[in-house]
């Protein structure tokens, strides 16, 4: 029987675990002595050796990201914690924020010490009002207890943590748009290079890490890199908080090691497809990941390499299960509508293109489209992707392309025949 591995979620079930006294009773802040007796470079090495990869979606190795910081600069280094969890289907960070904020704060202390930063910003999704209140209370408690502030854990090391609330823009979860937003500007991704590790917040070196990545640090420091590597597989070590939603019997957040078979997780942890219905598809890691058909899902395992083999992404681990009643064209409309609404409007292809795709898909769903519309929207997926500053455009075109290719007959069933006058018009033009 599959079992959860409680590394991040160890205190989730404990009552009032977000209070400092309770958290401390259950082991919070025990790594600080060990941390400050290690050299900063050693901490980075431990994290590198642990194989921890960024949990925000891209899966970039955390320790390697840290080592990109330029050496010997006289500028301050900033840590930005990305708590702008907005990807549809993703709801893991909110549990850490609400259930165990002190785990995050402890992780921030570790990260700050490792990268020699004294100022951390937590960019929290604007809609997370409860989580923000809990997190702010936790920061206040930690500050009062001297765990953060001027002398962290009685050491001569200052760390200030500031919460910055977003105003409801998905794009602010993109790391450079997040920085723009903290700086008080319109949330629009920056062109790279320069990368944030060189020129980030207020033009200073900045490391941006996801909440879950940061929250994984205390356990790694406490138990060592080798212990962490015992979870998961070689290319993806440790555990992940999987948010399983959609048409399953027991939706929720499950902490599991990497590498487990996707269907087994759905069936054993989440109770399988609900109401005994048939599976139609699985979105494996948040809405921007291309959908898997039941056949593909049967061979996929929950790690980066397997998902890449199946031409999709591990993403944020937000698994959305779709049963046989789902209309794929309507899902396509729903997704495009979201990404069109969230496009920041900076780059031409994304700004103009996503709205166009939404209108064409709506026309298809309304039964007013013909084959040329369907071919056009499929072509647009290729025309829009890969030409923009950030990957929001691709986050829309990739899942839509997958839906169009894998469930094309469903779209075609909605088409009406090509009007004859258009045909004659076209042939007249050719002459």
């Amino acid at each position, binding site marked *: 029987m599959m079992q959860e591995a409680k590394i991040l979620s160890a205190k989730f079930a404990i009552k009032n675990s977000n209070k400092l006294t309770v958290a401390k009773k259950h082991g919070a802040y025990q790594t600080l002595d060990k941390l400050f007796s290690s050299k900063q470079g050693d901490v980075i090495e431990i994290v590198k050796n642990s194989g921890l990869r960024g949990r925000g979606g891209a899966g970039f190795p955390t320790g390697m990201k840290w080592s990109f910081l330029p050496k010997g600069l006289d500028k301050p280094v900033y840590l930005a914690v990305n708590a702008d969890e907005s990807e549809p289907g993703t709801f893991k960070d909110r549990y850490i924020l609400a259930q165990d904020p002190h785990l995050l704060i402890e992780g921030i202390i570790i990260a700050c010490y490792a990268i020699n930063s004294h100022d951390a910003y937590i960019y929290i999704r604007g809609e997370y009002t409860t989580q923000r209140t809990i997190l702010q209370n936790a920061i206040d408690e930690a500050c009062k207890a001297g765990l953060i502030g001027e002398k962290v854990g009685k050491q001569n090391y200052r760390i200030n943590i500031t919460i910055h609330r977003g105003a409801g*823009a998905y*794009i602010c979860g993109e790391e450079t748009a997040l920085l723009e937003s903290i700086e008080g500007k*319109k949330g629009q991704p920056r*062109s790279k290079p320069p990368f944030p590790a060189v020129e980030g917040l207020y033009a200073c070196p900045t490391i941006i890490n996801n909440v879950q990545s940061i929250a994984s640090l205390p356990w790694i420091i406490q138990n060592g890199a080798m212990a962490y590597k015992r979870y998961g597989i070689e290319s993806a070590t440790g555990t992940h908080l999987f948010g399983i939603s959609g048409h399953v019997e027991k939706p929720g957040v499950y902490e599991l090691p990497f590498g487990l078979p996707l269907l087994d997780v759905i069936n054993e942890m989440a109770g399988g497809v609900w109401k005994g219905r048939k599976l139609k598809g699985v979105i494996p890691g948040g809405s921007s990941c291309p959908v898997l058909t039941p056949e593909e899902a049967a061979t996929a395992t929950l790690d980066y390499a397997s998902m890449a083999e199946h031409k999709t992404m591990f993403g944020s681990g937000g698994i959305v299960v779709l049963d046989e009643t789902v209309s794929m064209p309507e899902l396509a409309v729903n997704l495009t509508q979201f990404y*069109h*609404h*969230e*496009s*920041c*409007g*900076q*780059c*031409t*292809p*994304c*700004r*103009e*293109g*996503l*709205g*166009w795709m939404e*209108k*064409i898909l709506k*026309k298809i769903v309304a039964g007013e489209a013909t084959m*040329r*519309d369907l071919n*056009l929207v499929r072509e647009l997926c290729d*025309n*829009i992707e*890969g*030409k*923009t*500053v950030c990957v929001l455009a691709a986050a829309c075109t990739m899942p839509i392309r997958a839906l169009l290719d894998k469930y094309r007959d469903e779209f075609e069933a909605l088409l009406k025949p090509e009007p004859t006058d258009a045909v004659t018009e076209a042939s007249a*033009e050719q002459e």
Partner: protein
Amino acid sequence: MTEMIKLFVNGEEVEVESGKNLIDALEKVGIEIPHFCYHPALGADGNCRMCLVGIEDGRPPVVPACKTLAKEGMKVLLDADNIKKIQHDVMELEFINHPTDCPICDQAGECKLQDYYMKYEGTESRMWVPQVTKRKMQDFGGGVIHDQERCVACGRCVRFLRQITRTGELGLVNRGDDCRVEFFPGRPINNRYGLNVVDLCPVGALTSADFRFKQRAWFLKRAESICHGCSKGCNIMVDHNKEKYEDDIIYRLRPRQNEQVNGWFMCDEGRMTYKLENDNRLEECTLAGAVRPLADIFADAERRIERATKVLFLVSPSASLEQLAAVQALAEKTGATVSAFSDGYIVKDDGDDFLIKDDKAANRAGVDLLGIAKSRTHFDNMAKEADVFINFGNDLSRSLSEEQIGRLFSDTWVLNGATHPGQLGAVMEKKVGSSIALRSWSEYHGVVVNCDGIAQKFVGGVMKNVERPDIVEMAAGLGSPATGTAAAWALVQKKIPALAEFGGFLELPAEGVKLTDNEAGK
């Protein structure tokens, strides 16, 4: 000299200046990379995605040219199929929500969307769903009209007002295809350089309230000139046209690039000085109140100069070097005194640290270089003694009141050469012996020296229906040895040795000639 580097474009080796991005570096050697948002004066933004080029063996293989520095040995691909497809696709996406109302758009003819469509897209629209609709004809203030539907959201206007004027009236608001340029409610464009956003706009989204619907761009004739509105001498383009049976009219002035002087811009006041060239001009030459041929007026004035005991010439500080030299030569021949009194051309505290200067005279530095007196005492003393006074286009009403002018010349015979009525005051002009309607700066060629000592040439392309003499011709008519601009230019060269190497004013380089203080003193 700038360092040169070698790189490859589509496999062919080209030599370009180092330290520039690919757009600028390749533009100098005649290779175009299409772009909307990049502008040399505003820097790279990278939002239009039109300038994406391929870099062979590069990582990443496709980069925005505006943000990519030209490097030695770089292999740039512009004609690769994937790059051509990107250009085609981006253009198609620029167009889907564009109203394509070229027949009623003022930008037509000088619009990047039109040019790029012909060059990079050229396919039928596939917009088979309704377009996004936005606001039309929005008054942005400062004489700028905005059409949100035509906008490509390149943000040049926004960046100009943030980076150059630092007034920041405009911003890009909303997301996705609802993104648009707006001003903050109740705070429209309000600065003295606002109309530059119209030139910067690569499409017809921002148009000038003053120019719109007046003339199609392709009908306009262009003359490279220098703004005569102040002593900065901004390089401008005079856009004018003579319609059938009508007079030659200037429709607008636009800034012309000169890194040494004005960069890419000019002020709004300077831009509007074209109206003075068109309207309320003196048309007739009179002798004792009656319209007479120019020859009669010249003969009469010449006789009076000969008989007079003391003659005073007043020149304008905006006159060209040639004109000043011609009047000087006439003064030397007849024993007259020349003054360039023009205190009223200086408007205290009107200037700023960008382009606008206190001194509204276009050639005061030239007046000084030729050694023409301009003090008030000198002028007053000479005016009191003179029994003949000849004005060569100086707007004396700027410096003195009507009574003061009347008192100074109560017993003096006056010949008034002027471009506009009222330059000697309305009262005085009724009493003048003769008057000559002169050409204005848009109608003659010449050289003026700006406040920084840069000598710049300008071409007068406007051909008015009414034939008027310019000041060189007026001086020649009165007997100046400088019988034409060429002769006058030779006189200028004698006085300003730094200009000796240029056979004619047309030989001056486009960026002007810096006349240092040392050379001026010789």
